[in-house]
C-alpha cells in the first residue's frame, strides 16, 4: 500500500511545456508515472514527447480522467494553477513552484479547502510511491519499495534520507515532501494521519528543521491520537545561530519557538527516536523495523 499516489494515479503536468516542466515530465515518465497529459494555455492540441497537451485542466481531466496534477508553472501564475486544478476536481495537486507570493497562497489554500482536493506544497519536492508513481522532482534512482513512510520539510534533506535508507536496504511505502513555505497545503500532521491508516507503513521517518511549529504540532498529535507506529525524527539547523534567517521563510528562529531544542524535546516527549545524523536515521529505523518484525 501507500499514501496519496499509487499505480492508479493518472497525472497531468501543469506547465509541462516550460523548461522545468518538460524536463521533469520526462523524468516522471522514466520513473513509470502514468503521465496522461500536460496543460499549457494556448498550446492545447499539441503533442510533446508523446504527451498530449491541453489548454485547461478541465479539458485535460475530461479527456484523460486525470486525478493528480503536478504544478510546474512560474510563481506569478502558480496559485491560479493550484486553484484551477482544484476546481477541475483532481484528488491531489502537488505544487513544486518556489517563490509564490504568500497572499496568493493564502487565497489558494482557502479555495482548495472548499473543494475535495488535497494540496501538497508549494515549494516542495513532491511525492514518490516507489515502483508506482512519482509526482515532482525527487531523483528517480534513490527510491525503492519498502516499509518506511517518509515525511520531510526540506527537499534535498529528504533525498538524503531516502538514499541513506535505500543503500541500507530499507525502502519506502511513500515519501512525501511537504515543503518549506509559510502557508502550505498538507503538513506533518496530515501526512502522519495518512501513514496511520496505511498498513504497510511500519516506521515513519520525519525530517524537520528549525523554524515554525509544525514539528511541535506533530508531536502533540502523536501523543493525542495514540499514533502507534515508531517515529524516527531528524531536525536540521541545530547549530544555526538564533535570529538568522537560514534560507527560505521556514527556517528562522524567533525566541524559543522553532528552535531545534524545542522540537527535539517535543518529539522526544511524544516517544519519537531522535537522530543526530543521517547515519543515525538509518540505524534507528533499522532497529525499529527489527523490533516490529520480532
Amino acid at each position, binding site marked *: 500500500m501507500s499514501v496519496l499516489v499509487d499505480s492508479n494515479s493518472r497525472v497531468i503536468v501543469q506547465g509541462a511545456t516550460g523548461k*522545468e516542466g518538460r524536463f521533469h515530465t520526462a523524468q516522471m515518465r522514466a520513473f513509470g508515472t502514468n503521465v496522461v497529459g500536460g496543460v499549457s494555455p494556448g498550446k492545447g492540441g499539441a503533442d510533446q514527447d508523446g504527451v498530449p497537451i491541453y489548454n485547461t485542466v478541465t479539458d485535460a481531466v475530461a479527456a484523460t480522467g486525470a486525478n493528480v496534477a503536478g504544478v510546474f508553472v512560474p510563481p*506569478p501564475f502558480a496559485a491560479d494553477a493550484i486553484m484551477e486544478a482544484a476546481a477541475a476536481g483532481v484528488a491531489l495537486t502537488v505544487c513544486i513552484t518556489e517563490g509564490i507570493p504568500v497572499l496568493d497562497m493564502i487565497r489558494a489554500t482557502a479555495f482548495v479547502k472548499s473543494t475535495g482536493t488535497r494540496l501538497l506544497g508549494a515549494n516542495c*519536492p513532491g511525492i514518490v510511491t516507489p515502483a508506482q508513481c512519482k509526482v515532482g522532482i525527487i531523483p528517480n534512482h*534513490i527510491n525503492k519499495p519498502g516499509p518506511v513512510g517518509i515525511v520531510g520539510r526540506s527537499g*534535498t534533506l529528504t533525498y538524503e534520507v531516502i538514499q541513506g535508507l535505500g543503500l541500507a536496504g530499507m525502502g519506502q511505502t511513500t515519501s512525501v515532501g511537504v515543503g518549506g513555505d509559510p502557508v502550505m497545503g498538507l503538513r506533518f500532521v496530515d501526512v502522519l494521519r495518512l501513514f496511520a491508516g496505511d498498513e504497510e507503513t511500519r516506521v515513519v521517518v520525519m525530517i524537520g528543521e528549525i523554524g515554525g511549529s509544525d514539528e511541535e504540532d506533530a508531536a502533540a498529535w502523536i501523543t493525542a491520537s495514540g499514533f502507534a507506529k515508531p517515529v524516527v525524527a531528524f531536525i*536540521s*539547523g541545530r547549530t*544555526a545561530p538564533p535570529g*538568522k534567517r*537560514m534560507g527560505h521563510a521556514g527556517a528562522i528562529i524567533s525566541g524559543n519557538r522553532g528552535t531545534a531544542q524545542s522540537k527535539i524535546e517535543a518529539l522526544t516527549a511524544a516517544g519519537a527516536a531522535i537522530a543526530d545524523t543521517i547515519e543515525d536515521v538509518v540505524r534507528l529505523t533499522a532497529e525499529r523495523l527489527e523490533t516490529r518484525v520480532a
Partner: protein
Amino acid sequence: MKLLEYQAKQRFAAAGIDIPAGRLARTGDEAAAVARELGRIAVKAQVPIGGRGKAGGIAVVDTPEDARREAERILALRIRGYPVHALWCEQALAIDHELYLGITLDRDRGRLVLIVSASGGMDIEQVAESAPEKVVKIWPDPFAGPQPYEIRQLAFAALAHAEALRERAGQLVTGLVRAGTRLYALAVAHDALTCEINPLVLTPQGTLVAGDGKLEIDENAEYRHQDLVAELSGDQGDADRAGEDPYEAEARRRGLTYVHLDGYVGCIGNGAGLVMNTLDLVKQHGGEPADFLDVGGGAGAEKVRNALEMVLLDPNVRGVFINIFGGITRGDEVARGIVAARDQLHITKPLVVRMTGTNEAEGRQILEAAGIVPATSATEAARTIVALTAGGQS
C-alpha cells in the same frame, strides 16, 4: 523588504489613515527647521528595527535649539547595529490613550490576522504574553476581506479591557472599523506580511492617529511592486542598510541567499535544510562554518560560479564544502559552474564537492575530467574538508 517608519506612514496617509504632520531631516539644521515650522515635535531615528525608543532614538523637543541638539545626538547613535541616517520629525501628539492595530501572517491558520488591543505602546509583546485576552484577533476570509461587523466585534471585545475607554467605546469603534478596514486593504495591496500601527494614538479630541508605522513586504511579491522597490532602493538603499554585514550586503547585491558566520569552512549547498545540515556536519567533525549559502532549486552553472566567488570573498575561508543533492538542480550544471569558477578565479584553496541526485553521473564526469574528485557521502566530505582546513593558516 522592510519600510522605514516614514515610508510606511506616507502609505498610511495615502490610504486615509491619519498621521501627524511631519518632515524628514538628515541634519540638526533640518530638524531645527521642522521644529520652527511645526512647534513641539518628536525627533525619531529611522532604522529598520524595533526598540529604538528604549535605545534613546526618540526625543520630544519644544524648541528649534533642542531639536538641533537632539537630532545631532540621535544621528550619532548606532541602534542595535544600525547607524541613523535619517530622522522623521513630526508634530508631538497629545496622547489620551495608546491602542494597537496590526495585521500579520498567521502561519498556523494560513491567513492574515487582524489584531486590536486597547493596551498599545512599547510593551504590547509583554501584554500578549501575560494577558493574551487583551490582544484580540480575527482571521478574515481571504476573498471577502474583513467585514465591518467583524472589526466592530473585534473592537468592542478589545475595548472591554480598558475601563477608561468604556464610555467612549461607541465612537472609538467607528474609528477603529474605518482604520482597520483601510489598513487591511493597504496590507493586501502591498503584499504586506506585517502592517502595524503601534501605538495607535487616541487624542484628547477623540481622533485616532498613527503614532508609528511598520510595513514589511513579501519578498516573493516584489515583482508586483516594482515602483515601490525602485523608490525604496533610492531612499533606503545601501546608506540605510549600512549596519548590515558587508558580506551579506554583497550577497544581496549578487542575489544570493547567504548568511555570514564566524568560521573558516565555506559552505554551499542546495536547499535550506541541506545547507543547515551541511553546517551541522562541519561542526560535528570539529570545523567551524564560515557561512550559509543556499543556491536554491534549479541553480545553473552561473549561479554556482557566483556562489563560490561570494564565499571566497571572506579571507577567513580556508576551503569550501559544496554539498549538492540534485532534484530540480542538475549535477552537470553544478559541475560546470564549479569548474568555471575554479578556472576563472584561479582558486587554489581546497574544494570538496559532494554531489548526488539528478544527472549525477554527468556531473561527476565533468568534475573528474577537471581534476576534482567528488566525495561519495556528505559525512566523508565533511571529514575531508575539516581535515584540509584545520591548522590555522588561511
